[in-house]
């Protein structure tokens, strides 16, 4: 048994079902309904019925943060589970939910736990993404892109990152999304398209920013024992990590290293792997700078070399390290992160069709939230 005292969860928990709704503009869908639909599809995928679920974990919708959210979703599912909770780490929450799911199963409090996210900011309210507030608004600092633009500028000054290197991330995501019928943006873009796109908050252009999307995605987590007789082969949770800088930019000493460094160190150590063992990555890409910093912090390259790393097709399908094979936040859906876990599972099951990475055995997913304020890492494996 690979279990050790240091890592009690190691290789003992699995993702046995994944599901997602269409992505894009979905009028007529509430965020609760999007959660329920994603969970319904994930349970179908696992070959489970809703009455076999005893844990319902949610990430609160960004556009409509509220109390008792997981209870509302449970109610809409017609369930009174043993465990419900909403975990708020912004975009890092999805992996946080999986961590909590493993914990409650380990503690004997539940056996089959669904982890879900759904939101409808495109047809509902976009206010959360255009946040006005705080003393800084008097100087005109507002909206989600500005913080990432400040980090990008600082990174450029420290390490000489070129806009072409940001573009390489956007181009790879669009190229992969073209192979994904459910992606929101399926038209490939060229380097010329990138430089012709308008600045939103300079140095970030439109193509550096993920879209706002309606949609939902969910995963089903259970123990390795429970997973054995389900519909599809389980995908094993090899490693999981979290680390949260947890400070606003003005108080954060280092802007160019993120929580990914410590979170990744923990997850890779738990999994017993190094970056060279990884076949495919799904890295949170709300803005193009983020996966560049994440690749460095995870040890795929040295600090300052992330820009060069993403160039030359290395992160594209057929390259050395295919990244965001369903299009990522930049092109599949701007939903904050659960879709990356869904895609990693499909890659490891060999279900990704024209965007399949051949013989993918180990996948790494990053989730992060705020302005690189939180971070979580998931290492998944086809084999235990």
């Amino acid at each position: 048994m690979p279990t050790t005292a240091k890592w009690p969860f190691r290789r003992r928990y699995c993702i046995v079902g994944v599901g997602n709704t269409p992505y894009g503009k979905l009028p007529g869908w509430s965020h609760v309904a999007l959660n329920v639909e994603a969970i319904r599809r994930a349970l179908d995928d696992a070959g489970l019925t809703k009455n076999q679920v005893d844990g319902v974990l949610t990430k609160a919708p960004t556009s409509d943060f509220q109390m008792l959210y997981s209870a509302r979703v449970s109610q809409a599912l017609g369930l009174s589970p043993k465990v419900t909770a909403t975990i708020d780490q912004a975009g890092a929450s999805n992996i946080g939910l999986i961590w909590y799911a493993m914990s409650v199963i380990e503690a004997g409090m539940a056996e089959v736990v669904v982890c879900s996210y759904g939101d409808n900011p495109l047809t509902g309210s976009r206010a959360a993404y255009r946040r006005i507030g705080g003393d800084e608004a008097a100087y005109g600092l507002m909206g989600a892109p500005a913080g990432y633009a400040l980090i990008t500028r600082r990174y450029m000054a420290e390490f000489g990152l070129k806009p072409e290197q940001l573009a390489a991330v956007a181009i790879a995501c669009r190229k992969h999304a073209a192979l994904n019928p459910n992606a929101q943006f399926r038209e490939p873009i060229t380097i010329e398209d990138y430089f012709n796109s308008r600045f939103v908050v300079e140095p970030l252009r439109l193509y550096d920013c993920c879209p706002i999307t309606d949609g939902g995605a969910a995963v089903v987590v259970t123990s390795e024992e429970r997973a054995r007789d389900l519909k599809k082969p389980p995908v094993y949770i090899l490693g999981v990590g979290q680390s949260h800088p947890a400070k606003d930019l003005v108080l954060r000493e280092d802007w160019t290293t993120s929580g990914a460094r410590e979170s990744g160190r923990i997850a890779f150590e738990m999994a017993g792997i190094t970056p060279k063992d990884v076949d495919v990555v799904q890295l949170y890409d709300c803005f193009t700078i983020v996966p560049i910093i994440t690749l460095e912090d995870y040890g795929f390259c040295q600090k300052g070399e992330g820009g060069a790393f993403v160039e030359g097709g290395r992160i594209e399908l057929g390259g050395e390290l295919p990244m965001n094979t369903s299009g990522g936040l930049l092109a599949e859906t701007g939903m904050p992160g659960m879709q990356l876990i869904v895609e990693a599972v499909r890659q490891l099951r060999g279900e990704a069709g024209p965007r399949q990475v051949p013989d993918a055995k180990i996948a790494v997913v990053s989730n992060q939230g705020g302005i690189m304020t939180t971070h979580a890492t998931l290492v998944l494996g086809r084999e235990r």
Partner: protein
Amino acid sequence: MNIERPLPEITDQNRSFWESARAGRLKLQRCRDCGRWRYPPAHHCYWCLSEEADWEPVSGRGTVYSFVVFHQAFHPAFKDRLPYNVAVVELVEGPRLVTNIVGCRNDEIYVGMPVEAVYEPLTEEVTLVKFRPVEVWERADAVVD
């Protein structure tokens, strides 16, 4: 139509900051126990959790830590100002402030640019602390000493 920009909410916590800005002499909280600067203003020291602090003047000198240029208005009051810059300035004392750089074009701003505070009254209560480029001032450690 003159649309008013969002204003800071003046609280017991930050009142001394905005009063010092109005007086044209920037003051920040400094921990009475560990001596560290406490910005943004807070009840407890971020480092030692002490509640004790004094408001002490700072040099108003610093460098641009990072900056961006808005090409899209997220609030109607800034629509006519596009493109406008927002910067984070690191004071020689250490704290970093969100601000605007004035007195130069947006394409003249660079990371590391030496700047000093200027005070722009906005309302009766609120004076914004902005920064303008200066010739290289003495090294930071010389200023602190």
